[in-house]
Structures are given as structure tokens and as C-alpha cells.
């Protein structure tokens, strides 16, 4: 388990590093789109087939899902005593699942 913990720890730091940049890009993009007065249809027109944006949001969603799940795992262990392999696998599943919700949303904008 200790090897696994090193990997979880490293994954949370690496995702944090990426999220720092990704959140900034995301917010700036939203502000530019809103202040530029783009309509929903115009935004969709720009996201359809935009592979770079699709890949960016896939990475963003997966990083956010994993980062949050690893953090919640720690809080649950400390406050609720939820420890052990079963809980670890459940948190990994929750992280991937929430990440995949984001990927699904990005896919919707990509192919819409």
C-alpha cells in the first residue's frame, strides 16, 4: 500500500500543478466569451471539431476528478475512519467517474 500512497500523493501534486494552469485558462476563456457577447450557438460553432479544446477539457476533467477524489479520500480517512483497500478502490472509481462526466460534456461540445 505504501507504494500506492506514493503514487496517489504524486498524482495529486501533478494534477494540482496542471489544474492551476487549466483553471486560469478556463476562467479567462469564459470571461472573453461572455464579454465578447458570444451566443450559445456561436460558442458551439467554435467548440465543434476543435480537437485541441476537446483534449484540453478531457485532461482538465480527469485531473479535477482524480484530484478531488484523492483529497476526499484523505478527509474521509481522517474524519470518518474510512481506510483500506476497498475504500481506496472506491475513491479511484469515484475520481474516474466524475472525470468521465466532464469528458462526456466535452465530447458533447466537440461533436454537437
Amino acid at each position, binding site marked *: *500500500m*505504501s*507504494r*500506492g*500512497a*506514493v*503514487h*496517489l*500523493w*504524486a498524482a495529486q*501534486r501533478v494534477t494540482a500543478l496542471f489544474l492551476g494552469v487549466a483553471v486560469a485558462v478556463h476562467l479567462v476563456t469564459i470571461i472573453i466569451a461572455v464579454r465578447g457577447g458570444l451566443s450559445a450557438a456561436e460558442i458551439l460553432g467554435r467548440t465543434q471539431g476543435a480537437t485541441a479544446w476537446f483534449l484540453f477539457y478531457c485532461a482538465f476533467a480527469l485531473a479535477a476528478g482524480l484530484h478531488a477524489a484523492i483529497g476526499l479520500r*484523505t478527509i474521509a*480517512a*481522517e*474524519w470518518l475512519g474510512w*481506510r483500506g483497500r476497498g475504500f481506496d478502490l472506491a475513491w479511484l472509481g469515484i475520481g474516474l467517474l466524475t472525470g468521465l462526466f466532464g469528458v462526456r460534456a466535452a465530447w458533447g461540445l466537440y461533436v454537437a
Partner: protein
Amino acid sequence: METLKAPETLKVRVWRGDAAGGEFAEYAVPARENQTVLDVVTEIQREIEPTLAYRFACRVGMCGSCAMEVNGRARWTCRTHVRRVARPGEVLELRPLANLPVIRDLATDMAPFFDKWARARGQFQPKDAGDGAVPDDFAVVPPESKARREADAGIECIGCGVCYASCDIVAWNPDYLGPAAMNRAWTLVNDVRDGARGARLEAVSGDAGCHSCHSTQSCTQHCPKNLDPSSAIAGLKRSLFWDSLLGRRG
């Protein structure tokens, strides 16, 4: 003509009990110009309550055995003047160290604390003489080398348990090794004469080890020796990260 002033009194609340539980008892002792918290405890035991259990040895900040919780904060009672922690008229409140089993009153059982030093592989393991033989030559350790300076930073720990009692993670996870054990491990990881780096890093990794530390630094804040266990734990995380990434972990 000088008038005789009645001595002021100091009110002290002392936790009395054992592993099964307990409660505070109140005592009043003469307030003196110069008195340490340990002086107060000793005065209560000698003059008022002979059954009060507490622990001390050197009385001068060398042994670390008189640590207790003074007004909510773990401290060496021998090096804590009453006037530093309680203004005139304020009550002094004494409890046994947190995060450790209570034997009786102010004396805690330090065994779990030292067992964790052993679990963190806090013993020096000579690289050149694993079987206990004397090495052929002296090891040359340049005082200015990075490893030596890292080891120096943590080597003065006397194992008083103040950091351990101040650590939230120990309170949340009874298996957590705690700041002192990992500070010790970090000094040995930086000891170039030591041959157990891999096994030691393995011992301090994971949820019971350095990866659970939130770096809130209560240990560093409260260490009576002004050591920085929080940085030592961060060093262990760094070493484990790079050793794992570069495939150096056997």
C-alpha cells in the same frame, strides 16, 4: 515602614485521573515572582496533594520528561515561567500530553511514541559494518555538505513528545508515525554512513507516514528545541517522490 503584603495566590486546575478517565481538581498555591510551571506542580505535590503523579528529571530543559499541556499547549513545564502563560489573576490549567495514553494524572505512557521511532527505523545502521563490526576507517563527512546540514538541522531532538502531542494527524490516525519519528528518520536518510535508506524510506511512506502530513506545522511551531520536523517530513516526501520516479526504490 514597609507593610507586609499577603502573598498572592495562583489558581491551578490540574487534570486528575487515569486511563479510565478523570476530571480537573483545583488548587491554590502562592504566586511567586519567579516560578516555573514545574515548580507549581512540585509545590502542589509536596504541600497539598502527595498523590499527584507527574514526571520530571533534569529540571533544566535537557531531558524532555516534564512535558505537559499548559493552558492548551504542550510545553516543557521546567522551561515555562508561569508569568509567560498566565497573567496575574488568570488560572493555570494543566493536562497530561495529548495523543498518548494516560498512566495517572499528568504522567503519560510514552511507549507508543518510542515504538513509532523504531517503526520509522530510527536506528543508525552502519553501511560498512552491518554485522556490528568496527569499520576500517573513519567516515569523512564534510560539515558544509548538503546532507550534513540537513542532518544537523534535526539532530538535537531529545524525544520529549511535545510535537507528537501537538499533531492533529496523530489525533486523527493513531497509526501515524508522528513528527519526531520522521524527523529522526530524515536525519538518518541524510547520514552518508547509514546503509538502510531504502528500508527507512519504505517505513515512513504511506498513510501512516509522511504522505499523511498536511504541513500545518504545529510540530515546528511548538518544538521547544526550535527544530523543524515539518520540513524533515517534506524532505522525506521529496526523496520518496524522486526515488519512485527515477526507479531508485529497489
